[in-house]
């Protein structure tokens, strides 16, 4: 365990250095957030009927999405360094280490999903809460439920992105998967549109997928749209999906390592 933790620590310290990239990313996220807020304001102004989510809740949801965008498995997924290792053949060294390779890559994934997120989320809160209509959690219990479920989301996203990284053992380039997967995750996590605003039948499908536990459910715990009492169910869902992706990842890795052809040279 210690080896994996220190690997995580080392990767985290490396990735937290990329502050200029974080500033650029922050500017882009802020601009996108503004566009999305204005679009949804216009839609809400159009209708006086009660909606499953109020406008101010929707705005907070959008800003949370912008703040935690870097945690979603889009950028640096699959792990660009692992991809390089597989392409050049130096993945052979990884296989030779006296450590569990899945654990190794999982620790890398947790670092890759957390450090850049921290750099972007903190300034987003500092900007959006005072200036752009983002609300704070209504109670300390909601805040606690959110914090726990956000940690659960981090572990879940990392397990998912480790599976994607492992798929490189088959596809090598991963071009196809990196095109289609982000769109699915965006839709299912609520980053295209908050899930409560989808038609009912559609929501049922999206809730059955693991992606809603990556963003939508933690966000709704944050603003009390889901009461704090709903937190255990969310955490359980996250734990089950994390375990499922971990098992799938280990299984794929065992198969992949057996049939791996090291790209020579």
């Amino acid at each position, binding site marked *: 365990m210690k080896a994996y933790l220190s690997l995580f620590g080392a990767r985290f310290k490396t990735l937290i250095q990329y502050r200029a990239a974080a500033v650029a990313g922050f500017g882009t996220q802020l601009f996108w957030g503004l566009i999305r807020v*204005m679009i949804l304001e216009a839609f809400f102004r159009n209708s006086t009927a009660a909606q499953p989510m109020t406008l101010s809740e929707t705005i907070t949801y959008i800003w949370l999405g912008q703040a935690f965008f870097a945690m979603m498995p889009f950028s640096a997924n699959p792990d660009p360094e692992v991809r390089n290792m597989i392409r050049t053949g130096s993945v052979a060294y990884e296989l030779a280490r006296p450590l569990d390779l899945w654990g190794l890559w999982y620790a890398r994934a947790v670092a890759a999903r957390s450090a850049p997120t921290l750099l972007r989320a903190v300034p987003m809160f500092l900007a959006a809460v005072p200036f752009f209509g983002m609300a704070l959690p209504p109670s300390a219990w909601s805040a606690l439920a959110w914090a726990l479920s956000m940690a659960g989301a981090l572990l879940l996203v990392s397990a998912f992105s480790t599976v994607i990284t492992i798929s490189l053992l088959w596809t090598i380039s991963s071009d196809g998967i990196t095109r*289609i997967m982000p769109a699915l995750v965006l839709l299912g996590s609520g980053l295209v549109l908050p899930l409560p605003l989808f038609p009912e039948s559609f929501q049922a499908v999206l809730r059955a997928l693991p992606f809603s536990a990556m963003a939508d459910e933690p966000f709704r715990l944050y603003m009390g749209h889901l009461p704090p009492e709903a937190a255990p169910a969310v955490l359980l869902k996250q734990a089950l999906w994390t375990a499922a992706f971990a098992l799938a990842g280990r299984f794929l890795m065992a198969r992949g390592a057996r049939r791996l052809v090291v790209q020579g040279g």
Partner: protein
Amino acid sequence: MRRDTLALYGRYMAVALRGQMQYRASFALLSVGQFFALGIEFLGIWALFDRFGSIRGWSLPEVALLYGMVNVAFALAESFGRGFDLFSALIKAGDFDRLLLRPRSTALQVAGSDFQFLRVGRLAVGLVALAWSASVLAVAWTPAKAALVVASVLGGACVFYGLFVLQAVLCFWTVESLEIMNTVTYGGTETAQYPLGIYRPWFRRFFTFVVPLACVNYIPASALLGREAALGVPPWLPWVAPLVGVAFLLVCLRVWTFGERRYRSTGS
């Protein structure tokens, strides 16, 4: 500009096309992926209309006209402006020095350095949206109206092309391509998918007078849909507005020659 400039540009395109035809499978996969990704985004738009009915009085087919025009325009600019889009690589490697030695304008050479003809997912999504909205809308289509759609798309392509040129010009100073430009290219596409009237005044002004996307999308579309009264401009104006896109591109090319004079090689 020499007389055979167009011929040379045609040559560049032919070479790029022949090269890319070698990777047909990759082309098919990328296009399908792009089509799928944009289709999923459109699902989000559809869900919003399903819930709220309309946005500031604009119905889904009307918004689909805006969506189709801007996406086709962006797809065209992406295909032809790829040389400028990837320009930072040319600067970083010091390869731009070679272009300076050749007896042709650098803008032409950069424009011809790369094309992306085979990634047609966005183009397909845009055309489908356009065709659907044109058939559903109760617009009496005349040759003049059809011409205005084509002019708006071409004008829009000029605006986005100009933005790619500006993004490349910035590389003369920064070397690295700036992510912030994505806010006006991809962000502009997202913005123009909805009627501009929904945004705050400063935002509307920005996308009308600084980056003139409104002139090639919202303003002509309003005229097509009989909504020009809401614009508060003379009735002839929407019919010539797409020309602003061409003017924007010409200005950007002027900025290119200005930036080029300040170029210093990285020496690598």
